[in-house]
C-alpha cells in the first residue's frame, strides 16, 4: 500500500514539481485542511482537494475554524491537529509575526504569476476578494458612481450611504477620494499627516453616512432593501444579491483587494505533505477551478491563461488582469503594525 502510494505520489510530484525533493521513504498519506466552512469550503473541496486526493494518492480530511485564535491555541498547547489552515490576511500576517506557522518551502512553490503583496515567508494568498463601491441601479440610472471621489460627491450623487464601521479599507478609501493614487496610499497613511488627512476627509462624508455596517450580510441587506443607495461591500456579497434580482451593481475601480491565505501551523503532523499540497493549490491549474464555482479571484494570474476561465467570468473576477489593474491590494504588513492604534483612533473619531 505504502509503496503504491509513494509511487503514485512520486510520479505526480515528479510530473508537476520537477526537481522538487521527494526522498522521504515513509510518505505522509493523510492531511487535515481547515477553512471557514460553508459554501466556501465546499468550493475548495471541489476545486482543489478532490483533484489533489486523486493526483497525490492521499486522503485530505477537513475541519473548520473561525480565526487565528484556534490555531494559536493548538500551537501553544503543543497539540496541533491541523496541517493547513485558511485564514484572513490580517490573521496570516499576525501569525507569521507571532511565529506560530512553519516557513513555506519556496523551493516547491512557483510564485510566478502571483503578486508580491500576495505572499510572504510563512503564508501565501489563495483567493482574492474585493471591497468595492456598490450602488443601486434604480437610484443612479443615468450616471453611476465610479470612484471614491463620486462616493464623496453628495451633490452629483445624492442618496443614502453606508460604510463599514472599521478603519481597515475606509482610511484607504478616504485617501483615494482625496486624490492619493492607489499605489501611494500606504506611504501617505503611514505618516501622521497622512492619517490626519484621511480622518479629515472622512469628516466631510460623516454626516452623509446613514449606516455604519458591521457584517457582510448587513451591507448586502442595506443595498438589497434600498435602505441605502451606495455602500462599500465585498464583491461576492453583491454578486449574490444581484443574482437574486436586486437592482444593484458595482465597480472594481479603486476597489481594495484582500486575500485569504494558507499557512501551515507550527508542528503540524503532516507538514511535508502540507508543503506539497499548498504548492499545488496555488498553481494556475487548480486556482482556475475556483471561479466557475464561486466568484473569488485566483491569486495566480497565470490561471487566467489556462483556458478554464470564460470571458464572462474573467470580466467579473476580482483578480483578472484587467480588474487587478484598477484596484489596490490591502497591505497586511501595514495593518499588522497599525491596526490597534488606528482602531482606537477610529473609535475616538466615531464617538467624537
Amino acid at each position, binding site marked *: 500500500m505504502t509503496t503504491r502510494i509513494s509511487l503514485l505520489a512520486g510520479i505526480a510530484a515528479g510530473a508537476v514539481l520537477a526537481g522538487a525533493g521527494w526522498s522521504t521513504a515513509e510518505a505522509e498519506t493523510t492531511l487535515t485542511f481547515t477553512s471557514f466552512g460553508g459554501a466556501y469550503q465546499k468550493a475548495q473541496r471541489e476545486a482543489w482537494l478532490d483533484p489533489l486526493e486523486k493526483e497525490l494518492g492521499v486522503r485530505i480530511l477537513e475541519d473548520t475554524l473561525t480565526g487565528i*485564535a484556534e490555531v*494559536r491555541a493548538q500551537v501553544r498547547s503543543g497539540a496541533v491537529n491541523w496541517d493547513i489552515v485558511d485564514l484572513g490576511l490580517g490573521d496570516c500576517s499576525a501569525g507569521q509575526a507571532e511565529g506560530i506557522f512553519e516557513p513555506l518551502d519556496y523551493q516547491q512553490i512557483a510564485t510566478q504569476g502571483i503578486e508580491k503583496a500576495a505572499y510572504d515567508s510563512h503564508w501565501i494568498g489563495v483567493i482574492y476578494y474585493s471591497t468595492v463601491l456598490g450602488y443601486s441601479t434604480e437610484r443612479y440610472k443615468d450616471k453611476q458612481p465610479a470612484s471614491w471621489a463620486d462616493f464623496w460627491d453628495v451633490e452629483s450623487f445624492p442618496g443614502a450611504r453606508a460604510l463599514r464601521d472599521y478603519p481597515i479599507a475606509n482610511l484607504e478609501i478616504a485617501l483615494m477620494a482625496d486624490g492619493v493614487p492607489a499605489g501611494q496610499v500606504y506611504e501617505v497613511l503611514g505618516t501622521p499627516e497622512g492619517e490626519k488627512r484621511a480622518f479629515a476627509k472622512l469628516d466631510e462624508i460623516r454626516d452623509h453616512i*446613514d*449606516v455604519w455596517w458591521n457584517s457582510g450580510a448587513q451591507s448586502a441587506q442595506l443595498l438589497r432593501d434600498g*435602505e441605502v443607495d451606495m455602500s462599500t461591500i465585498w464583491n461576492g456579497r453583491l454578486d449574490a444579491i444581484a443574482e437574486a434580482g436586486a437592482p444593484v451593481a458595482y465597480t472594481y475601480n479603486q476597489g481594495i483587494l484582500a486575500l485569504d491565505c494558507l499557512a501551515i501551523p507550527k508542528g503540524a503532523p503532516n507538514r511535508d505533505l502540507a508543503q506539497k499540497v499548498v504548492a499545488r493549490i496555488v498553481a494556475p491549474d487548480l486556482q482556475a477551478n475556483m471561479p466557475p464555482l464561486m466568484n473569488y479571484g485566483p491569486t495566480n494570474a497565470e490561471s487566467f491563461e489556462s483556458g478554464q476561465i470564460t470571458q464572462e467570468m474573467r470580466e467579473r473576477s476580482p483578480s483578472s488582469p484587467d480588474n487587478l489593474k484598477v484596484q489596490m491590494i490591502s497591505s497586511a504588513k501595514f495593518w499588522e503594525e497599525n491596526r*490597534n492604534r488606528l482602531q482606537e483612533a477610529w473609535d475616538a473619531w466615531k464617538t467624537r
Partner: protein
Amino acid sequence: MSATGIESLAARRAGRPDANAPELAADERRERLHLFGLSLPALLVIGIVAFLPTAWLFWLSFIDEGSFSLAHYERMVREASYLRIFWSTFEISAVVTVIAILLGYPLAYLLSQLSERAASLLLILVLVPFWTSLLVRTYAWLVLLQRRGVINDWLQGLGLVDAPLRLVHNYTGTLIGMTHIMLPFLILPTYAALRTIDRDYLKAAASLGASPLRAFWTVFFPLSLPGLMAGALLVFVLCLGFYVTPALLGGGRVLLVSMKIQQNAGMYFEWGAASAMGVILLVATLGIFWGLGRLVSLDRVMGER
C-alpha cells in the same frame, strides 16, 4: 418549632426546665446542617458560575502578555473614546429606564386595578413578546422602522411626511428597540408589587377626604415604590450590558461598552483588555447601587424585611 415548645413545656411541668436542652440544641444543629446540605448544590453552582468567573475576570484584567500590568487600565485613561463610550452606555441605560417607567408604570397600575381574569389576559400581551426571541424582535423593528419600512411607507402614503424619517440606524432606533425589549422587565415586578397593596388603604384615604389623585400620590405611589425600583434597577443593569439590539439598530452610531468589549477581545488577543472594561463596568454599576442605596433603602427594593 411548636413541637419543641410543647416538649419544653412538658419538661418544665416535670420540674426539669432544661432537661432536654442539649438534645434540642443538637436537633437544631442537625437541622441547620441538613438545610446547608440541601442548599450546597445551589451554593456550588453560584460559586462556580458567578463568583469564580468574576474573580477570574478581575485577575485577568491585570495581566498583559503573561505578567502583572496596568496596561489595560492605562489604555482606558489614555484613549479618549473609552470615557465617551462608558458615558453613552450609562446615558442610554438611564434614558431607557426612564422611558420604561413612564410607559410601564401606568400599564402595571391598570393591570393591578383589573380583575384577576382580565389582568391575566392582558398580561399575555406583555408576556408573548417577552417569550419571543430577542433577535426576532430586533429584526422586526428594523423591518418596521427602516427607510422603506412599514412605518415610513404609511407616513408617506398618508402624505404626513415628504421624505422618509430616519427612525433606525441611529440613537432613536436604539432607544425604541431597547425600550421595547426592556419593558416586560419593568412591568412584571412592578405589577407583582402593586397587586399586593391593600386597597383598604385607599378607601381609608378617601374616607378621610382625600381626592383620588391625592390618595394615589400620598398612599398608593409610595407603597408601590419598592416594586417599581426593583423593576427599574433590573432594566438599568440589563441595559448596561446590552449588545444585540444596539448593535443592530444603532447603525454603528451608538457605541456601547458591550461592543467595545467584544472588539477588544478580538483586537488585542488578550482577555485582559476586555476584562478590564468588564471590571470598570461592574465597579461603576456597584457605585451607582451604593449611591442609590443612600437615597432609597435597597433592602426594601430587594425584598428583604
